[in-house]
């Protein structure tokens, strides 16, 4: 099989886009991490429940436990094991 058939151009493009997005995110985090200083008094909105990285922990646990097994996915959640009810 020709190598290009196993790795068609659109897949290489998607891979490049993914790598670029990842590099941009790492770069932004690193660079901005050194200069961004938001003082405590300016964090009124960052403390709001809808601005949290995990706004509803119990819902998050339920979904991360149930969704992958119901959907039948292998890589959609951040851990493995723990039982499934199946």
């Amino acid at each position, binding site marked *: 099989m020709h190598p290009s058939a196993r790795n068609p151009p659109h897949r290489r493009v998607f891979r490049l886009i993914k790598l670029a997005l990842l590099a941009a995110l790492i770069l932004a985090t690193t660079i901005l*991490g050194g200069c961004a200083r938001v003082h405590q008094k300016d964090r009124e909105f960052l403390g709001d429940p809808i601005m949290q990285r995990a706004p509803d922990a119990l819902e998050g646990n339920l979904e991360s436990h149930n969704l992958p097994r119901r959907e039948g996915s292998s890589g959609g959640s951040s851990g493995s094991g723990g039982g499934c009810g199946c």
Partner: protein
Amino acid sequence: MALCALAAAPPAEAASDSDQGLDFKYMYYWDRNGVWNHTPAFGFFRKLSSLWTIKWDQEFDAVTGASRRLGLRNIGRLGDHDLKLDGVSGASRREIRHSEKVGIAYDNQGRAAAAAFYFSDENDYRSYSPSVSGYLDFNDRNTTLGASAALFFDEMRPRGPFRGLGGKREIISLSGTLAQVLSPLSLVGLTANVIHSSGYLGHPYNPVTTANGTLLIEHLPGRKTAAALSGQILQGFHLGERLGSLRLEARHYRDDWKLISNTAEVQWYQYVAEATFVRLRARGYNQGTAAFAKKAYDGGEVYRTTDIRFFAFTSLSLGMKIGSVFPESWEDSYLLPDRWDIGYDQGVRDTKGEEDGISPLFHYQVFPKDQYYMQGTFMLGLSFDL
């Protein structure tokens, strides 16, 4: 086996300043194969001091079966109704799962740590999992660096026709997180996750049918190492005077079984009244096929599986959630909740059915072959400040 995030989550602001509280969730799942799943759960926390908090989560599952092995309800000789073993999967149609998670958390001005122990028990599966996590804020608390580790000691003990198969498995899950506040209304996060599994990693309820009709047991490698990288961008904004937030998340996963998956999710939270919010979300998921997974086997393969989790598919789900508070006059009573939320998500998987027959490979596709697999999840939540 099921996937779940059991390592302690990053510290999040509580929805209230109460010293103890109880969250209740009720989840109802259905799919077009007739599978349903009722899952009530609660999470309790109590602050022991300004630094220490104990937590207790409990979850019950009452389930007719997981969608990848069910779908045989009332079909031919397998239509033996509930409470009997399924002739193909060997598993009970109805099953109860119960899990407990107890933990303790420490949080002192940007230095946080947590430890938890999880236990899950069901008819044919048992799991124990200790986990620890730690988070450190620096850069004037604009940057958070975190790490977590979870160990799983699982054992699958099939009953019925598949008795004797199954076995033990051990899973180590490690993750590292970097989060950065960018402005009073924005932050970004990056999480890397490595998972190593060993032992019995299969699912005996997925027998393989060869081209000549022979039924063989599934056989998978005894080890798997997976890695995932996820990025999150959270941007707040004001629509009129109301705060809203847009959350973008992407995740890339790959493992040494050559399975690759990508997830993209967007969530829009918007306050529509002083304490009432609406959340709209969309999630797309795509995965490839594991190196050894085939649509047809001749019986001579080293590894073989028909487990739906190892085959390529794409799914899309759309959902909406509304949350608000109950009247302030209820605050005087412990028995009345303070907050509520209700939501529904509808998912579609690009897996077509097998019309009236049963596929020799995928036993779950019992809906019309010109239609896609559909599923829905309803969630109701009540929160009590005690």
